[in-house]
């Protein structure tokens, strides 16, 4: 058996462990782990699907460009949750640990562990990509904030009363300060 076959044979177990650990990063994760409905459980299912796709791509030695889509599915969510940057991208690196855990428990696969270097290298690449993506997401988040500020809705909270502004202007114009409106 070669490494690729070993990964395929243990895919289910590796994904189960990896997904479990990733979803454990949420305070109350049992629903995220349990519900299989993509729309009722967007965090759980997007992460589950993203991790599965990413694992298959890594296992078949796909080109790094292909990682972008599944990584987006995971990182776009984690980039706006209350994680530090390292916590947000950590699940990608954790795959290396999950693979070792499972393969070392399988006596037919144990001897393949030293051959994992190329797989590890690709997982590292995916992790670096995840960090780029994380930064893109944060930048988009801040641009969204700026866009909203610029769109004019800020006037909702930061506007001055028009008549008060007129009064201020008059006050500035008056050499003695104060204006007719104040006296009225």
């Amino acid at each position: 058996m070669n490494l690729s076959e070993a990964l395929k044979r243990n895919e289910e177990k590796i994904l189960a462990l990896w997904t479990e650990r990733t979803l454990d990063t949420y305070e109350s994760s049992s629903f995220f782990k349990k519900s299989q409905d993509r729309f009722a459980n967007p965090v759980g299912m997007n992460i589950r699907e993203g991790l599965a796709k990413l694992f298959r791509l890594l296992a078949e030695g796909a080109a790094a460009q292909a990682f972008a889509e599944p990584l987006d599915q995971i990182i776009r969510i984690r980039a706006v949750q209350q994680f530090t940057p390292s916590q947000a991208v950590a699940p990608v690196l954790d795959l290396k640990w999950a693979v070792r855990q499972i393969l070392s428990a399988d006596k037919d696969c144990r001897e393949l562990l030293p051959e994992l270097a190329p797989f590890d290298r690709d997982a590292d690449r995916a992790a670096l990509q995840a960090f780029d993506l994380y930064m893109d997401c944060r930048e988009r988040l801040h641009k969204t904030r700026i866009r909203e500020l610029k769109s004019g809705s800020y006037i909702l909270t930061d506007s001055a009363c028009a008549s008060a502004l007129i009064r201020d202007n008059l006050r500035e114009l008056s050499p003695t300060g104060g204006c007719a409106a104040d006296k009225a």
Partner: protein
Amino acid sequence: MAVIKKDALARSVVEDPTLMTGSMPDKDWMDIPAVFKPGNYAYTTKPEKLEYLNSQQGVSFPNARAWNPEDEDWKLPANWKEIILKGLADRLDRFRSLKIFMDCCVRCGACADKCHFFLGTGDPKNMPVLRAELLRSVYRKEFTLAGKLLGKMAGGREMTVSVLKEWFMYAYQCTECRRCSVFCPYGIDTAEITMMLRELLHLVGCGINWAMEPVSNSNRTGNHMGLTPQAFKGNVEFLCEDLENLTGVKVNPTFNRKGAEVLFITPSADVFAEPGLFTCMGYLLLFEAIGLDYTWSTYASEGGNFGLFTSNEMMKKLNGKMYTEAKRLGVKWILGGECGHMWRVIHQYMDTMNGPADFLEVPKSPLTGTVFENAASTKMVHISEFTADLIKNGKIKLDKSRNAHIKATFHDSCNPARAMGMLEEPRYILNNVLDEWHEMPKNTIREKTFCCGSGTALNTEEIMELRMRSGLPRANAVKHVYDKHGINTLACVCAIDRATLSALMNYWVPGVQVAGVSELVGNALVIEGENRQELTEGLRTLV
């Protein structure tokens, strides 16, 4: 600093599961304090706004001060605890619903996984049951025999500053969307629990500026933006000029006109901010096309009622203004624009607060003769109900090809859907103005619709991250129809949605714009004598 051995580090990266921080709490929920940091709370009310409101008749907003949630000391009044407990006792006495909601929850958990805040964060205190428990635990301790005797064993807990901080955190991580209530076998309205939490917090001067400044502006000039009557009128007239350039149709709205048949009230954001402006252009064009005898008011110039997110007295006062103005102008009935929570106030609270509006007539469409029996008491009809009736009776001519650039999906805004039951009318309109539109998955629409994530005055930019988390369930469903059908427009009937979904789409599903249903009607409308330009983007076309 410890010297890190390279080989040991390399080994740990692949062998130790230390990169992840499992977040399983190691303490009881009652013992985990709320931690405030930039991005997870909205800015507090400016003292001058609160002082102004507190000086107004019929409402009370004491303890104005500058304070920061991140500080240890919130500068609470010395007798804050007494104020809170007295306030709670008073409300338990006045609102039977609150007493029942405090007592009847069996903690079945049906609501737990239905909240968009929980689904986006995984924070257990965002489960509606636990959010309500934040108040219920204090209620048990102070107002039930079991709680008084057994304390924590009976689920009771002392009212402390830490509990108060937790209330502030989670009362502002609920958009009162009422999705959880749809699933509650006892019909507990969690939104009303949030409303009570916010009321209690206001007693000690703890509120957010994004709610209180619009409230203050509405109380002063009649609308959230604080627009003066002249500015409000000027903005509408500016839109009329745009419409004339685009369609050749001269639109002549009137303002504060006594004796008009209908008073039209919409959220001021429609008059002021994109993309609501285009929805407003849709209204103006429609009313011109059918020759409606209507007037705008520059005093009742706001459909939105942030009083709903503040206190019941404030809600009553802001709602009352619309009816006072209708009476002053002597109109027969009120037509309401695409607002969300305005409709909840109208349908669920208006009648007992300020109603019945006996001085008005049961709304009857002057074009079709349809009597809107559903509005027999409130005398206020939704623009989508009105438009759908016009279409059904063949009173307007629509050309779907004018919306050829639109491929839409429809977001049921929480309040029109769940508080008003308006599910079919917008869909009927979309069927008549669009060639193609697609529904989102069925557990995310109609009465099960997911909130935009930023309602109840949470649509402020300093909590953009929080809004993106809570809006994820909605955005996730939009993304599905975007991937599957290539939709480019998210249609809705709520002004807050138009603003907040624009930001939400910008993060989660770039390439999808947000449009009011009335904008799409305006795009498709064929008007006699028009001289329409080639409008490839409908009313948004720059000419």
